């Protein structure tokens, strides 16, 4: 069902990030292919947000290599990431409540005709975009303030799609959403994948992860703690990787044996 390209769209090789005395990320590896949803999970403080911010260019990395479609790139500021084709939807959606849906979709990149806003063209394209993503909102001409939480989330995601990004990063898109709204957002994530976008999905909700993700990358205390295939892994295994329950007597003895053999 998932067509995975040979070269990953984005690959992190041994990425490390330090904030003063805190080592936020240590030698993190991550690969995302086109048409693939990778869920990034981990406990609070595991480094999920830091990792996403390094990809989005908010925090430049200290060590390691970021590869974009097979070649090493420097991502030092948000603009670099946008130019590569990385779109990030943060948890606080950053929409303007007083402006209508069309205005928010095109905020900062308005279509102009002879210096004047081309409202008709923006509205037409906005409708087209929302239709292709099967997003249903009451009207594209009502202010964001009158939309529900789920609708706002879908608008924020649609906004990220305008630049035709290759990689979309969604930071906790279903947090604080109701059942029906969560379903809408998850549907949208699947449609992004079907359109060939690579998606990184940060979530605390295992049910969501199981529902839409292809791979689950677990972070624990700033390090990789396994990448699992969703189909063949049970929820318990993932949760134990998140909480570190795998770190038990058996695994420690195994690790020591490996070390002893070296």
């Amino acid at each position, binding site marked *: 069902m998932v067509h995975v390209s040979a070269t990953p769209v984005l690959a992190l090789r041994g990425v490390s990030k330090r904030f003063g005395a805190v080592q936020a990320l240590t030698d993190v590896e991550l690969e995302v292919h086109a048409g693939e949803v990778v869920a990034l999970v981990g406990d609070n403080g595991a480094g999920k947000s830091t990792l996403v911010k390094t990809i989005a260019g908010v925090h430049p990395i200290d060590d390691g290599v970021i590869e974009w479609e097979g070649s090493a790139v420097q991502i030092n500021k948000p603009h670099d990431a946008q130019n590569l084709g990385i779109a990030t939807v943060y948890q606080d959606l*950053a929409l303007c*409540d007083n402006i209508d849906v069309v205005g928010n979709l095109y905020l900062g990149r308005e279509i102009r005709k002879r210096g004047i806003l081309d409202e008709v063209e923006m509205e037409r394209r906005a409708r087209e975009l929302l239709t292709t993503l099967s997003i249903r909102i009451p009207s594209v001409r009502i202010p964001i303030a009158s939309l529900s939480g789920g609708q706002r989330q879908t608008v924020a995601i649609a906004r990220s799609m305008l630049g035709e990004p290759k990689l979309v990063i969604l930071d906790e898109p279903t947090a604080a959403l109701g059942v029906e709204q969560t379903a809408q957002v998850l549907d949208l994530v699947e449609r992004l994948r079907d359109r060939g976008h690579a998606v990184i999905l940060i979530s605390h909700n295992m049910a969501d992860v199981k529902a839409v993700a292809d791979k689950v990358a677990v972070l624990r205390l700033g390090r990789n703690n396994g990448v699992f295939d969703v189909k063949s892994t049970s929820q318990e295994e993932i949760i134990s990787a998140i909480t570190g329950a795998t770190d038990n007597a058996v695994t420690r003895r195994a690790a020591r044996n490996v070390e002893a053999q070296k």
Partner: protein
Amino acid sequence: MSTDKTSPAVGKTPAAPADTAPSDTAPADTAPVDAPAPAPAAVTAVDPRLLVREQGFAGYLGEFKRKMRAGDLGSIPVVIGLLVICVIFQGLNENFLSAGNLSNIAVSMVATGMMAVGIIFVLLLGEIDLSVGSVSGVSGAIVAVLSVTNGINEWLAIVAAITGGALIGAIHGFFFARIGAPAFAVTLSGLLFWQGFMLQLLGSNGTINLDSDGLVGQLTTYYFSDVAAAYGLALVAVVAFFLSSFTDSRRREAAGVPSRPLSEIALRTGLLAVIAFAAAATFNQYKGLPLAVLLFLVVLVASDFVLRRTAYGRKIFALGGSVEASRRAGINVTAVRISVFAIAGTFAAVGGLFWASKIAAANQSAGAGDLLMNVIAAAVIGGTSLFGGRGRTWNALLGVMVITSIQYGLALEGIATPIQYMITGGVLLATVVIDSVTRKTQKTAGRA
């Protein structure tokens, strides 16, 4: 429990996203067994919750009613307020609605109105500029000192005064946007500083008389006495409005997005025509079309265009909605903020010229008294939100009409300033109350 859940689920199926069914990824077990799968054609059917306006005039009426219920009153309270004011003062004195009085009101409201346009820009950011009164005084003083005392060409003096206003505003903007001081505090200190600056400019004698036939003097005294001027302007306005609405509607139709029905455009044009020609007839009964009113209308049209049709205006609204969202959208927050304060300063200076013109002098009391309050009140009464992100510059016209009509009405009755202050204060309070109440209604209707 399970039966309770299925029955609403089945009932909801058409309204709930029907796209889950055709999607190949949807697990089969989520589809209710007894609910027929929607036919492919049904997927594009209109969701009953969507606010799709019916075509034609009925749809327009329906939307109007819905807006009223949702508390989206627009300018209706102000228009009603204006009618009430007219009825009351006409009842007290039959001269109130005379052509002469209305024409005088129109001319004298321009000074406050110009300043209100500037303050609306600042209010849209969710900020306030308390210095506009003092800045208007400085502008009058600059013109007087340059043209009368130093004998410089009056055009140059006017340009200098307006540039000075823009510069003063930019300085306020710099301290607010770049240094991060609260706009309230920056412009409050500006209020005092520029008042002092004006007194310094005017020197010891305090009043500089302007030539009442000069450029500044003519601002409020020149009338286009030819009857054709007022009617021509009204005709141009009506035709321009109709053509722009009509072509816009045609373009929208061609692009396949909802457009205004012709009947609605006709209704709006008709309404505008009635108002425009009534105003023109009134002006022509007295001295003709006042230059001041023409300039004010030009400013209103231009500023409304900038705010609603350009990317720059969109940035101002965005900043009033969410600074963080604007920043992430790549908007240069500092530059927009500084420019908006510069615009407020510019319009304050322009307003100052009209004040100077009205008394044909620059004196020490310019920009003092209730001017600042009237300017802010005009913007707010017109419907500009104090919380940012909501409002139009046309609001300045309505608001300043209310304020000036009250002043003139009370003056006709010979009611003194103390009472005037109290009544104006009461009207402002009433407006803020209406704004707050409608805001609450809007919240409950999901439209904040």
